[in-house]
């Protein structure tokens, strides 16, 4: 066929030379590479005892954020649920009552907030959609459970420890004991 462009370059397909066809030298060559690799640094990470460092933007399991005073940030606006291509998020909104100002940052809050981790594809669109700095994808991943029900994470699984009352838990969760 004639060329369509001036950029084509034929691949090198010479027949093998006699030297290349000889058995022993080729085996020796291959073996030398293999043996060379035995003395290289082992790239395997012995998970779960060891983990590798993740990038700060890693998309793992979700957390629901609190503000500095420990109040829940989520205002149940539902944007994350709309943005979710896997339809994994369900929530129920409620109105904040007098005396609950120390629990919820906004007047409306999520009374129930669930993410189905079996549906979730960890695309990160919910984090991007949240206008309240309330949901983040953390660096933990690999949830495990015996039943499907356990993969539906409620608020108690998602909320980060309260920075005021459980400061040490929060530091531990962030990996800075």
């Amino acid at each position, binding site marked *: *066929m004639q060329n369509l462009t001036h*950029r084509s370059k034929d*691949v090198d397909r010479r027949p093998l030379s006699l030297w290349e066809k000889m058995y022993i030298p080729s085996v020796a060559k291959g073996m030398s590479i293999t043996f060379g690799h035995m003395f290289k640094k082992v790239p395997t990470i012995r998970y779960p005892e060891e983990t590798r460092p993740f*990038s700060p933007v890693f*998309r793992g399991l979700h957390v629901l954020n609190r503000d500095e005073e420990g109040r829940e940030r989520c205002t149940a606006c539902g944007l994350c649920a709309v943005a979710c291509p896997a339809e994994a998020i369900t929530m129920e909104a409620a109105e904040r009552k007098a005396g609950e100002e120390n629990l919820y940052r906004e007047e409306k809050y999520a009374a129930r907030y669930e993410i189905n981790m079996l549906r979730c594809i960890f*695309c990160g669109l919910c984090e991007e959609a949240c206008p309240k700095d309330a949901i983040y994808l953390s660096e933990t991943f690999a949830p495990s459970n015996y039943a499907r029900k356990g993969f539906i994470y409620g608020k108690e699984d998602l909320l980060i420890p309260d920075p005021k009352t459980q400061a040490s838990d929060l530091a531990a969760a962030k990996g800075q004991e």
Partner: protein
Amino acid sequence: MQEHQHNIKLPDGSIERQTTTLNLGPTHPATHGVFQNILEMDGERVVSAESTVGYIHRAFEKLAERRPLYQITPLTDRLNYCSSPINNMGWHMTCEKLLGVVTPKRVDYMRVIIMELARIADHVICNSVIGVDAGALSVFLYVMQYRERIYEIYEEICGSRLTTNIGRIGGFERNFTPAAWSKLESFLDEFPKVMKEFENLLKRNRIFVERCVGAGPISAERALNYGFTGPNLRAAGVDYDVRVHTPYSSYEDFDFKIPVGTTGDVYDRWLVRNEEIWESLSIVRQAYEKIQQFKGEEAEVFHANVPEYYLPKKQDVYTKMEALIWHFKIIMGETAIPAGEVYHSVEGGNGELGFYMISDGGRSPYRLHFRRPCFIYYQAYPELVKDSMLADAVLVLSSLNLIAGEMDA
């Protein structure tokens, strides 16, 4: 022997008395994905093959009809998952074509870097798996470490390794971090050495060469008739490359060659992919240098200035009303989308990956079609393996770089 077992009349002189039906797949370690091939075997020789599709059909095109444009990107991740960034970028560019968004040069070059890295990752997998199917496992393990390095670069940018959902309509979700750049630099430094070793082990290796030469050949004419594109077409001798013929994302600014083969057999496909890895490396290097030349404000651009389609900065969303309104509109998918028809194609990991979208002006596409190269290659599979040995049938399957996710959408 019963009469109905004579499925296919065997030629005189065949040692077998009847053909055997052999199911290769749908879950078979040698098929690298959910493919079913019903092979009719005369001993070790394939008399006829019948391929089945649809084992992991997930109806992406239908799902997309209910999703705003930005939510379709995660679906494209799952087409050819060996090079999902290319699919993501292809989809973004299709949307940009429909919406009339023009991306700045720096964004184009960043995209080129990511797409070429994805191509390297894709080809490295395919070529090393050809090695595995020909009996050489260690090469696969050696280069796999370096695919991981590419994945780490993705992770620095988008936060994920395999199903990337990288980039947004109009650009990237964030600028490349210094960590991403330094990972890219060290990859560019170290990878050529690894590639050399990889080549050394396979390219002129007598066992490998004799195994691959002449296996599953296809002529340029047959390949064109089937609608082959990408490395598989180039291996047959046609220098067709979407990056050259209809340049997108500023590919016209780059200098690279199109490797072509002659016979279209497994060895040619391997050689073409191998050369393309080198070309891709040089493209990444060129793009990297071009990006270094941006100065001042230009050096910080990572998305087009399109407030209608690109989410405002998070800091503004928290504090400014106008930004918050745009934020809501974009997430709800309520921004104006023009009616029209677009087709955009990119040179994917294994061929021309096209997106054909019809929009009626609604929040999601009226109809969407992915042109998936794997689906087309798979149609030629029975012809390619007819009269070959069973072991070659496996080799041909991997050399076409068939990815079940892309084949079935």
